[in-house]
């Protein structure tokens, strides 16, 4: 089950797509890199990624991990943000049968999972077709 303290640490990553940016070469990284993969600099600062991008590939997931059982089936997409950084996210408000690669998508905050025993809700990013 998702750890609530780890979740709290990651809020801005999940709500605002906060990655890191290299202070030397300007390269942007999401997930956040601690050592710049382009120039090796260790001085990176928090930086918000663009909230829009395009869908590179997608799959309809039918057998989720335990905590996501109540959401199945759902679409998982590989998304390339407008700055070239890539991430995985569910794609919502779409009909999976008609979903095309290269569709322009944007971030939306949705519920990811709930710990029904403890009563905590975990929110994070999913993506939905523009507008």
């Amino acid at each position, binding site marked *: 089950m*998702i750890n609530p303290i*780890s979740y709290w640490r*990651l809020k801005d*990553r*999940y709500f605002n797509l906060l990655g890191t940016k290299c202070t030397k070469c300007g390269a942007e990284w999401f*997930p956040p890199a601690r050592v710049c993969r382009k120039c090796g600099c260790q001085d990176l600062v928090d930086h918000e990624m663009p909230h829009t991008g395009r869908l*590179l*590939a*997608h*799959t*309809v*997931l*039918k*057998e*989720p*991990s*335990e*905590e*996501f*059982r109540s*959401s199945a089936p*759902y679409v*998982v997409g*590989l998304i390339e943000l407008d700055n070239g950084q*890539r*991430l*995985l*996210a*569910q794609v919502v408000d779409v009909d*999976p049968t008609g979903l095309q*690669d290269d569709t322009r998508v944007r971030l939306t905050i949705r519920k*990811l*999972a709930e710990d029904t025993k403890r009563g905590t809700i*975990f929110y*994070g*990013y*999913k993506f939905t077709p523009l507008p």
Partner: protein
Amino acid sequence: MSRAYVASVGMTQVGEHWRKSLLDLMVEASLQAMNACPSIVPDRVIVGNMFSGAGSNQEQLGAYLASQLNLVGVPAYKVEGACGSGGAAVHNGYLSVKADESEAVLVCGVEKMKDLDVGRATAALAMADSAEYTQFVGATFISLNALTHAMYVKKHGVAKEEMAGFPVLGHRNAASARHSMFKRPITVEDVIRSPIISDPIRLMDSSPICDGAAALLIVNERKAKELGDVMVEVAASEVAANLFTIYERPDPLDYVATRAAAGRALAKAGVKIGQVDFIEVHDAFSVTAALALESMGVSGPGQAPKDVTKGRFNLDGELPINTFGGLKGRGHPVGATGVYQVAEAYLQVSGKAERNQVKGAKVGMTHNMGGVDTTTSVHILRREG
């Protein structure tokens, strides 16, 4: 610096072992290997395993096994690299012997998966990938491979009938193997009609969730000679790590770690890929076998599915792969797989492969991946003389 040899192997049946625990499996495989060479007492115990904690509430597997084998005082520890734990454990045993720090290492790979229901097993397997950015968004390990499969098909236009050649081959070889999980051959129709699990991956494209353990005794040259049996050298043992997730990689279809490990292993062993007699390749899903073979240079880009369909990789083909069924046919108890592969390679080059024998096999390669080519190990075994 010594050379390292595989002296003996042990393997449990791969399957659903409701009545055998994690420990039962480890001990069974280990005793098989040890009893084959009663004169050798291991001076080190290394266990390869992925999720004994999440699956059985048990860590510290090195001491756990050593204790049951009455091997007190020897170095004993667990090595983990997701589904590549087995290969990493073998590598560690190899290094100990090469460095003259051990004379005889017991390497045991084990996984107990069937005690978990599907949802929990899926969650445990997903721990191979990022907790914060893969698991948290609801992606599973299968979905990562499904995305890869979709991109692979889009790039090369591969027909699903051709991809199906991999599981068909796996089941055919597994049917005659003693320790394999599946004994029933399947057809291309069976594969492409099987239900979709994570589009486009079907049930029969996926290796099964199962239990099993395999063990090896890796010894130095002196101990190997004393046995008077065929000498099987571990001619190379290489491990390589990739960028952690597929979305951090410039090209998700390029198995960088596989290429690095295979390249180094072949160079170390002084062997070209064309001189290898068989390859035990990591076919967790049909697409991983295809991409691994292409990254190693065995097949051209997008060509591996055509090669398997043409019969190039059959047991009696130009370059046999997965001679006992591979992950799909023999089974994939994740942390154990890498050790099963090396054990199978030993059986091949030592001429003990029975109905699955590749004629004249002398040099074999194994390829074991943790995650999606994230922790990849390649071993080359060679018969001396």
